């Protein structure tokens, strides 16, 4: 974590501050990934199996975490939801980071008009609040897995572009790049061989942080009905549906939110821990 000054180096407190978050984050995410994978082969009940007569039973009465308005097992739905949430976030970030980094490398290598156009493009995307664009995108192609992935990735592209440009530009001013140029290497080869390996740290940090953000955004989209269609369980839709049953079945509103929060927390903690290791310039920054 931030703020671990030289004075505390070596003390137990320091070690906890330094390693605690990363370890906690890793534990949370491994747990999440584990649950998500297990849900593919086993859940206590089939997650979309309805038992209308058992509807809205509180935790421990039916199943471990109770049932929803159709009598479906909440634990099973949360488990299957973990897979959906995680897979959408991974896809979206992979897409966004992939495109963003490539554009960013190109901009840093060629600059000129490309840079102006790209940076203006980023401005345009940033100017429209993500949720509004996602709503329009949802209306465009209809709600579903790919809507969520595209909507989230659209916002990741400029984020990764900017970060890559910033980091890559600094690398381009270094001596070893001049040497490579003198050796006759073209911008494509230099970007691949010399620039990318040197900026991979900040990008990985950003990937973990954006994974958390993607899970958060996916929940928001599903909450508005723009995520995965039923019967695929989704944490955001579970939250949206819980609203009507807030008084009768509060656990339906609490549990999926907790799942979202813990997953995001996990990614953020990993991101912080990695930042301290991989991106020393940013150490101590928020």
């Amino acid at each position: 974590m931030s703020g671990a000054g030289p004075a505390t180096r070596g003390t137990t407190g320091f070690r906890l501050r330094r390693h605690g978050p990363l370890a906690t984050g890793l534990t949370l995410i491994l747990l999440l990934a584990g649950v998500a994978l297990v849900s593919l082969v086993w859940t206590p009940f089939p997650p979309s199996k309805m038992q209308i007569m058992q509807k809205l039973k509180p935790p421990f009465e039916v199943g471990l975490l109770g049932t929803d308005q159709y009598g479906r097992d909440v634990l099973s739905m949360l488990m299957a939801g973990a897979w959906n949430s995680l897979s959408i976030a991974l896809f979206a970030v992979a897409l966004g980071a992939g495109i963003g980094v490539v554009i960013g490398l190109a901009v840093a290598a060629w600059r000129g008009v490309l840079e102006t156009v790209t940076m203006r493009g980023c401005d345009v995307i940033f100017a429209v609040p993500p949720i509004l664009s996602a709503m329009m995108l949802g209306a465009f192609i209809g709600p579903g897995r790919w809507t969520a992935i595209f909507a989230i990735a659209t916002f990741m592209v400029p984020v990764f572009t900017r970060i890559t440009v910033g980091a890559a530009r600094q690398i381009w001013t270094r001596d070893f790049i001049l040497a490579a140029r003198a050796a006759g290497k073209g911008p494509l080869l230099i970007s691949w061989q010399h620039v990318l390996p040197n900026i991979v740290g900040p990008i990985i940090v950003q990937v973990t942080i954006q994974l958390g953000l993607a899970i958060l955004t996916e929940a928001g989209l599903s909450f508005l009905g723009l995520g995965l269609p039923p019967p695929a369980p989704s944490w955001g839709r579970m939250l949206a549906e819980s609203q009507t049953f807030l008084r009768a079945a509060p656990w339906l509103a609490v549990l999926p939110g907790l799942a979202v929060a813990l997953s995001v927390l996990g990614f953020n903690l990993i991101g912080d821990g990695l930042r301290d290791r991989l991106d020393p310039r940013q150490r101590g920054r928020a």
Partner: protein
Amino acid sequence: MARFVRSISEVLVSATAILCLLLTTMAAAAPRTDLAIGMTIEPAGLDPTIAAPVAIGQVTWQNIFEGLVTIDRDGKIKPQLASSWEISPDGLTYRFSLRSGVTFHDGEAFTASVAKASIDRARAADSVNPQKRFFASVDTVEAEDPQTLVIRLKQPAGSLLYWLAWPSSVIVGEKSAANNKTTPVGTGPFVFVRWAKGDRVELKRNPGYWNREISVKLETVTFRFIGDPQAQSAALVSGDVDAFPEFGAPELMSSFDGDERLMTVVGDTELKVVAGMNNSRKPFDDKRVRQALMMALDRTTIIEGAWSGFGTPIGSHYTPNDRAYVDLTGVYPYDPEKARALLAEAGYPNGFSFTIKAPQMSYAARTAEVMQALLAEVGVTMIIEPTEFPAKWVQDVFTGRDYDMTIVAHAEPMDIDIYSRDPYYFNYRNPAFDTAIRQVEQTPDAAGQDKFYQEAQKILADDVPALFLFVMPKLGVWDKRLKGLWEDEPIPSNVLAEVYWTE
């Protein structure tokens, strides 16, 4: 000291008692005259003659606007701006005697020429009336004298009187018609005051209301638009809203049980929830497949799962509060074994897979989810594709007719004729059915029409062009002291002229 304290407390007690008495007598002497009524959906404009959403009529029909004739709470046609009428024996000429002394809220007098202008506006070439088809058979409209209106038809239209009672057929003033969308002006018992967009519409009593037979008790009416069911419930409990005639969340109805102030009223509507199929697309072009799917569905489970057990199963596109209703739920009752057998007979022993385009409204989404589970039991895989209603649904399903199955509540009363319309999204063709519907229009007397309506219902029940599921209930929640609200809903509306507080 003690005596002093006691005397003070005695004074206090008696003062409080007097105050309470005063308050109760005051309350008893003057019942409330204001009403806050809740609605789920905000209307899109306030002119029912230029846009379709039922919310428009639910605010304005019979409150601000009136028609030549009207529909009462039992669904019967009653005179309104026309005091009486004669129909020629060939069913082609309608002669209406109009009331005198009726004025619009802006002072314009209601005469036969205003009525003629209003009907002509609805059927003009550039008309945007959502039910322009009602006037398709009209040949000419004449104002014979200020108190007599004559409508001549090209061919008989047995439902014309009924159609004239609809919100889309109300009589509008010549001067005010253009602005009715934002500032509606009619002849009704209430005058438009204010519309705070996204929140409320306010009306006040029309002191010059023509109909002296009705004594309008309410002075002010506020329509509040609250979409979220939890917020609807909170508004009712806190007293911000006195009545929610169409409460949005069946699952919350039981939370009002035993409430001292509020009561729940479950009535009938015209909202038929049906899962329409594309009858020209495989495998739905096979009658046996449609019948099998019908038998795979347990309507009771669907109603329980989708609408907390409120609702009436139907076997055809007709509701129990329509005249000439026949209960046809027994034609294809729930029987998964038979369903499987019939599917095998039709060539699908292992079932098949299809997509349902389901709108996002909770009744549709939930019904689709329950259907999905029930169909899985007979080996049929139904994939749910959430389809934004109305925009995308209208484009894909209604206009484009590019779908396998869909689900929607048909709100228009007595609209069984949609299965004979061409084009219509079911892509259903049945000459026998078309004949039955045509005969309804050619029969001027109600008893004669009923026979054909029954025949039409039976054809649909056997042919299953759509999976007939249930009629949505009218879930009313309102203050116990409030009287006069309609319990059933023969047409989507909130008629407030005869609503009053008992205390």
